[in-house]
């Protein structure tokens, strides 16, 4: 392991911080997703809710297809970016993830209640129609917050 040949001074520290920031800016440039990825995410979330409207056996089939689509999406992300960013990472994006989860969960619960207690069979489909734009928008917001965090100064370098 190499050692410093001279004491570390402020100029060295600043240079090191700038190097680290440059790497994060490069990550930000790569991490910009094409619009259809956000739409695909919205469709995945909506499908998850809409599947509740189908008879149990069909719902299982839909969920199996959903899982396959999810894996394919993850693979496409890794192939294109060369890295993966978990939606539940620490940082300001976590608030967006939680907000999106709460939004989807509330709509799912409401639709299940309407279907099971009020016998409104199409309720999950209506919920899915609301989840789709919400998830697409949430995905956009998540990306915007992440990119802002990556492009910010040294204060946010430390996770």
């Amino acid at each position, binding site marked *: 392991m190499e*050692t*410093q040949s001279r*004491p*570390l001074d*402020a100029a060295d520290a600043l240079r*090191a*911080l700038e190097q680290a920031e440059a790497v994060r800016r*490069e990550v930000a440039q790569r991490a910009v997703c094409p619009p259809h990825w956000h739409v695909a995410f919205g469709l995945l979330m909506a499908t998850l809710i809409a599947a509740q409207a189908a008879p149990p056996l069909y719902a299982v089939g839909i969920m199996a297809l959903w899982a396959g689509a999810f894996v394919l999406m993850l693979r496409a992300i890794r192939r294109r970016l060369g890295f993966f*960013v978990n939606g539940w990472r620490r940082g300001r994006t976590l608030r967006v993830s939680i907000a999106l989860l709460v939004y989807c969960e509330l709509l799912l619960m409401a639709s299940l209640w309407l279907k099971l207690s009020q016998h409104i069979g199409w309720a999950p489909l209506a919920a899915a129609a609301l989840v789709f734009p919400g998830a697409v928008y949430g995905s956009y917001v998540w990306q915007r917050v992440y990119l802002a965090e990556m492009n910010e100064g040294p204060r946010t370098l*430390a996770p």
Partner: protein
Amino acid sequence: MNANIPRFDPVIHAPARLQIAALLCAVSDAEFATVRDTVGVSDSVLSKHLKQMEDAGYVRLSKASLDGRVRTRLAMTKVGRRAFAAHVKALQALVSVAEYAPAAVPLVTELEAAQ
């Protein structure tokens, strides 16, 4: 190790390893080739740096198959993320001290102090 306490880390201090840590802390995991291209080093140099970081418990390497090819994935461990955060805080502290007191005595790394 407390990430809130500034602490120079001799493992992360080297420019290439600092960049590797900065990249891996910004993502969940990254492919070897992506890290190599971003940091701008050769395969062998990156392997050498990763070995040091892995020995320190900062980086975790795993193999995964994608498109029929086995690829190496790199991820920062919790210990590594804390060490990076503490190191960055130490660098930030050094820069802020210099901003308020330009004639401040230069600091030394922990490694030098130990020698």
